[in-house]
């Protein structure tokens, strides 16, 4: 199918985007670990109750902060994104999506106790399957894993991936150790084999301060400097040779913002020319590796104010294959239907809405 003229599309859908888009980042909310009870064994059912293990929401995402709940997507009660009816109405139907990928942000991934992390991640994956995927055919999900024990994470991926509606593996941008490290390779081995990209989502497990100068006072600062965590992960995955070892692996940077990347490409490639002897397995310019292996979701789109600069920016990336449509529902980055950045050329719209996601997530192709 050829590029669709944007004005034509706009006539078709009130949202201004083409019917059948693929939303690569929405957030179903787990209200309480009590919802996980059916998916836990007796020991953990009892422990959750007698120790009151609950409220493990990530500090990175206070659900009532403006950034994380768009006013018209805020339910009267409970957390935004906790009710499937609202998710259908607000996103799936409203944007007439073909698919939406559900990324559950709950603190299981940040647990210090590896068994609590594993058991809650496993339960969340089963909960996603039963409470979300079974209830709407358009939904797809990411497998959440705890990185405390990568072998166990690989087993969990293997187990859940048998369900083809799970299309990616989800980890947080700021964890205990950088993701390129060899200890995590069992995860990449299985992900590559099973056609699952690794989705790195904004958020911190607080094993380290967000910045080299410690902890910022404000949530808004934490959110801005998330790009440092993403930058570090891109560098680490390349430097440690993850793509030399797993050439089929793709990594999706989710809720990362996008405009920080060209400067990283430039500097990383420049330094590689002088520092290559340190990492001889990096045989291509890092910018080329980024274009081949990394993808970025659209929202929050940290765009230049002048729409005319959009195209300049795209040129700096050197490709238009890297961007994937996302609403980041129920987070609040745009109002009404202004989900696509101003200045985006019509030729790019369809790529971002459909083609790039399909190329990134092989499991979506099976179903389309």
């Amino acid at each position, binding site marked *: 199918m050829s590029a669709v003229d944007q004005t034509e599309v706009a006539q078709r859908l009130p949202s201004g985007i083409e019917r059948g888009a693929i939303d690569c980042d929405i957030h179903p909310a787990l209200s309480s670990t009590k919802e996980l009870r059916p998916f836990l064994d007796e020991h953990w059912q009892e422990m959750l109750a007698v*120790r009151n293990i609950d409220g*493990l929401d*990530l*500090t990175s995402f206070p659900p009532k902060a403006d950034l994380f709940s768009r006013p018209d997507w805020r339910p009267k009660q409970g957390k935004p994104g906790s009710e499937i009816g609202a998710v259908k109405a607000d996103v799936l139907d409203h944007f007439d999506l073909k698919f939406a990928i559900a990324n559950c942000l709950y603190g299981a991934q940040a647990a*210090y*106790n590896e068994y609590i992390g594993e058991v809650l991640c496993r339960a969340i994956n089963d909960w996603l399957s039963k409470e979300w995927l079974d209830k709407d055919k358009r939904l797809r999900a990411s497998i959440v894993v705890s990185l405390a024990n990568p072998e166990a994470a690989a087993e969990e991926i293997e187990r859940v991936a048998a369900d083809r509606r799970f299309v990616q593996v989800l980890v947080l941008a700021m964890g205990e150790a950088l993701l390129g490290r060899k200890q995590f390779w069992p995860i990449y081995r299985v992900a590559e084999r099973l056609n699952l990209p690794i989705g790195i989502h904004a958020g911190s497990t607080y094993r380290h301060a967000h910045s080299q100068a410690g*902890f910022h006072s404000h949530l808004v600062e934490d959110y801005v400097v998330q790009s440092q965590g993403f930058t570090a992960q891109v560098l680490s995955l390349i430097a440690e040779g993850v793509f030399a070892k797993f050439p089929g692996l793709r990594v999706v940077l989710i809720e990362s913002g996008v405009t920080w990347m060209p400067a990283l490409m430039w500097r990383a490639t420049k330094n590689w020319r002088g520092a290559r002897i340190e990492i001889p397995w990096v045989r291509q310019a890092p910018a080329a590796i980024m274009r081949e292996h990394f993808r970025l979701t659209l929202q929050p789109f940290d765009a230049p104010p002048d729409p005319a600069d959009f195209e300049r920016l795209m040129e700096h990336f050197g490709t238009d294959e890297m961007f994937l449509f996302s609403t980041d529902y129920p987070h609040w980055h745009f109002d009404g239907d202004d989900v696509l950045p101003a200045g985006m050329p019509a030729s790019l719209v369809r790529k971002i809405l459909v083609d790039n996601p399909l190329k990134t997530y092989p499991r979506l192709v099976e179903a389309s």
Partner: protein
Amino acid sequence: MSVIEEAKAAQPAKTRLKVIDCDIHPALRSASALAPYLAKQWQEHLRDFGIRARDPLNGRAYPPITPALSRQDSWPESGGPPGSDLNFMRKQHLDAVGVEYGVLQPLNPSGREERNPDFGAAVCRAMNEWQVAEWTSQETRLKASICVPAEDAEASVEEIALQAKRRDFVQIFMNPRLREPIGLRRYWPIYEAAVEYDLPIGLHVGGNTGIPTTASGWPSTYGENHFDQSTGLQVGIANMILEGVFVKFPKLKVVVVEGGLAWVSGLCAHLDYYWSRLRQEVPHLNMSPSEYMKQNIWFTTQPMDEPENRLDIVDVFESVGWDRLLFSSDYPHWDGDDPNFAFPATLPKAKLHAILCENARNVYRFETR
């Protein structure tokens, strides 16, 4: 193997001594119960953001071993969490164990650890007002602790100056685990104010600082973390001594709360040994570290160490110093101590008396405040 004997009280009820409890944790009935003490801006902030410490899961990263960290029988019939109902606290604790004075140490919400400095100061202020309005003004046996946002020494001093005038407050509440070692100069204005108003620093175990509780990283379980927190206290007081806090403020009183006791003599020996080798690095110290320990620092007893041979605890008391020990219950927490069962029955009455109330009376000077 013999059957474990029924627990025996150290003293029969009739001859019971007065008890001063240096660590009682009052709780808000609900998160919104603090609202009346906050400006509107901060009420909304509390609702939308909550406390943002340097922690991934809003203080729940190490799920506690019991709900609300509390003993199972401490949930009031009136609803609300343990420690939230004054009448129930009177009945279950103050009256039942004969508390003459009880020192409140409010833990949550913690303005001490909040990253937004203005909000942190506002929460501390609110917690102080709440202690007076809902506790000390209703119950004269209870005394309050001045919560301060210690990372902001200037705001802390302001809060101390404001609250120290009220007889309700008997100490300044700090955690030993701050963003930087607690003895560093940036915190000295707080100690200066403490001396000026003759208020001890109540150094309660804890601190949610983003720095792992061990020097080798983050422990996995609540049990490890519970223990490792006490090492934070050891590091804290060692640092205060070595940085020269007590040289500058010889009259400063520090009460170490909820850190246990068995480590104290070992720490003293270590500090003295290394000090003898590395004195050149801390030339400002006028005497050995253990002498500052005996001069400026007191210890609450809970969680009471339980040696295999129960009577060995007497050696621990001896090494810390009979005049340095202050009874604390940690009510209503799960690891609390009951004054009737925490001490060996053979303890001489005068010594027990010192621990249960006289030492605390000397440190806090309740009557003269």
